[in-house]
C-alpha cells in the first residue's frame, strides 16, 4: 500500500468525524452513530479483541460486516432490548495515533480508546474496555467524511460487564 502524508485540514476533518462518533456513543444516540458510517452496502463495524487478532480467530463480539447489519444493531438496541438492561452511559476517551491516505484515497486512522461506563442507577464509574480503533474513512458523494469501516480491537479479552452499545 502506498501511503502518503495528509494535510492539516484533513486531520481536522478526521478528528471532527471521530468527535461525532464519540459524542453519539456518549449520548447512547444510535441513530447518530449509524449515520457516521458510509451508506455503501459494504460499510462495516466490527468489535473484536486483541486476542482474536493475534491468534487469527475470525469471530467477533459484534460483527456488522455490511450496512444492513449496522442498521439492525440500532434496531436491537432501540426496539428489542429496551426495558431489559440496566442502562449505562459511557465516556469514550480517544487519542489519534496516526492517519494516512492510501492509493484509493481512503484515510486509514489508528486511535487508542478508553471507555469508562457509569450505571445510571448505581452511579459509580468503571473501565468498560480499552483498546484501539482501526478506521477506514472515505469522503462520500456529498463531500463528508464517513467510516467505510471501523474496527474496535479490545485489549480487554474479558468484558467486565455486558455490553449493550457498540464501542
Amino acid at each position, binding site marked *: 500500500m502506498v501511503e502518503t502524508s495528509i494535510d492539516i485540514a484533513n486531520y481536522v476533518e478526521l478528528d471532527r468525524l471521530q468527535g461525532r462518533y464519540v459524542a453519539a456513543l456518549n449520548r447512547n444516540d444510535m441513530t447518530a452513530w449509524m449515520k457516521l458510517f458510509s451508506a455503501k452496502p459494504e460499510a462495516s463495524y466490527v468489535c473484536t479483541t486483541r486476542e482474536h487478532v493475534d491468534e487469527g480467530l475470525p469471530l467477533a463480539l459484534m460483527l456488522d460486516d455490511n450496512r444492513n447489519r449496522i442498521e439492525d444493531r440500532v434496531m436491537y438496541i432501540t426496539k428489542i432490548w429496551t426495558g431489559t438492561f440496566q442502562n449505562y452511559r459511557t465516556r469514550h476517551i480517544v487519542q489519534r495515533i496516526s492517519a494516512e491516505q492510501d492509493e484509493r484515497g481512503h484515510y486509514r486512522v489508528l486511535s487508542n480508546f478508553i471507555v469508562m461506563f457509569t450505571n445510571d442507577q448505581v452511579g459509580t464509574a468503571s473501565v468498560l474496555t480499552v483498546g484501539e480503533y482501526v478506521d477506514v474513512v472515505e469522503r462520500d458523494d456529498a463531500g463528508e467524511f464517513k467510516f467505510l469501516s471501523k474496527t474496535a480491537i479490545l485489549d480487554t*479479552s474479558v468484558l467486565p460487564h455486558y455490553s449493550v452499545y457498540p464501542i
Partner: protein
Amino acid sequence: MDYLFLARVTREDYVVMTNLDFEWPSKVNHVPKELYTRPDLYEREIQRIFRGPEWHAIAHQCEVPGNGDFKTLTYAEMPFLVARGSDGEVRVFLNSCPHRANQVEVRCKGNTTRFNCPYHRWTFANDGRLIGCPSDDDYEPGFDRTDYPLPRVRHEMMHGIIFITFSSEVGGLPEYLGDVAPFIAQAMGGDSNLKLLGYQKVRYACNWKVYGDNDIFHPPLLHRALSMLNWQSAAGERASCPVRGHLALKAELTPPPNNGTLKDMSIIREVGNDETSSCAVILFPLFVITKHLSVINLRFASPVGPNQTEVNYAYFARCDDDEETVIHRTRQGSNLLGPVGLISMEDAAIFQRTQIGAGTPGNMVFQKGVASLGTQGQEPPFSNEVHILSRIRYYREVMGM
C-alpha cells in the same frame, strides 16, 4: 498414573455433614434467595462441588490442536494448564510449580516442548516430567526428579470436550452424564471434529447459580426478538438426567420468513449439513453446549467469587465445513447468541438484576410446570422452570442441606 485428588470424602458422606444454618421452606418450589448470596455457602460449594466429585468442562481439544500446543485458564479460582504433549496426548496440569508453587506458564496459549519455571529454573517436558532442576545435588536426601512432575489433574474427554475432576470417587464421564450423553455429539453438529472460531468472554455480576439456574420458561417472554420475528419455538425430543439435574433438549427449528424486522436475515438462516438444527445440553454445575441454527457454542463458565461469574463462550466450525459455512458460522456466532447477541443479550442483564434482587429477604417461587408441592421429583416438560428444581434438589444433597 498419579493424579492430584482433593475430594477427600464421597458424596454419600456429605449427607451426614450438615452444620449449616440454613432453613428450607416446606414447599419444594420455594427457594430462599440467600442461596444466591451467602459467602459461607460459596466456600462450601468450592469444596464440595468445584473440588468435589463432579466433572467440569474446561476446554475443547481443538483449542490445542497441534503437538506442543497449550492453553492456560482459571477454573473456580484454580490455575490450570492444558497441554498436548509431543506424543500427541492431551494432559491437564495445575499451573503451579511443585517446588515453590510459582505459576509456571504465563501465556494464554502457545506451543512449546518444555515449560520453564523462572524462579529456580525447574524445567518440565510438555508431558509434565521434571527434566531439569539446578543444584539438585544439594536438595533433600533421596531427592528424585520423578517425584516432582507438574501436578496432573484427572481428566476425561467426550467428543473432544475436556472434563476434569479432583475426585477419585466419581465414576467415568458416560456414567456421570447418563441419558444426556448421546445429545453431546448432536449439540456439536455430529462429533468432535471441530475448529475454533473464537471466544466471547464476559464477567457477570452474579452468583454462579444465578447463571446456572436460568430456566427454559423465559425465552419467548424475555427475548423479544423471538416474538418480533414471530418465531415459534419448536417441540422436540428431550432428555434429562434426574440424578444431577442435567438436561438435554433437541428441536427442529424453522426460521421465520422475513417480516421486515431484520434487514440482514442471514443472522437467522441455517447453513451447513448438521443433523440437528437446535440442541442444548445443560450440565450440573455450570457447563452448557448450545447448537442453534449454524452456531456451535460451548459455554465454559466459572465462579470468580460469591457474586461474580465468568463465562467464556467458545464458538466452533466443523472441520469438514466449506468456506461459506465457516463464514456463516462466524457471522452468526458473533451476533446471535452470546453476551451481545440479538436473542441473548437480555440474559446478561437478567443475571445481574436477579443478583440484586436476591439480596432481599424471602423466597424465590418457581411456578411454571409445578404440578405438586411435595418433595417428590417432578418430570420436566418443555418450556417450564421445574428442571431448575431438579438442580436444586441435587445441590441440596451435595451440600448437605
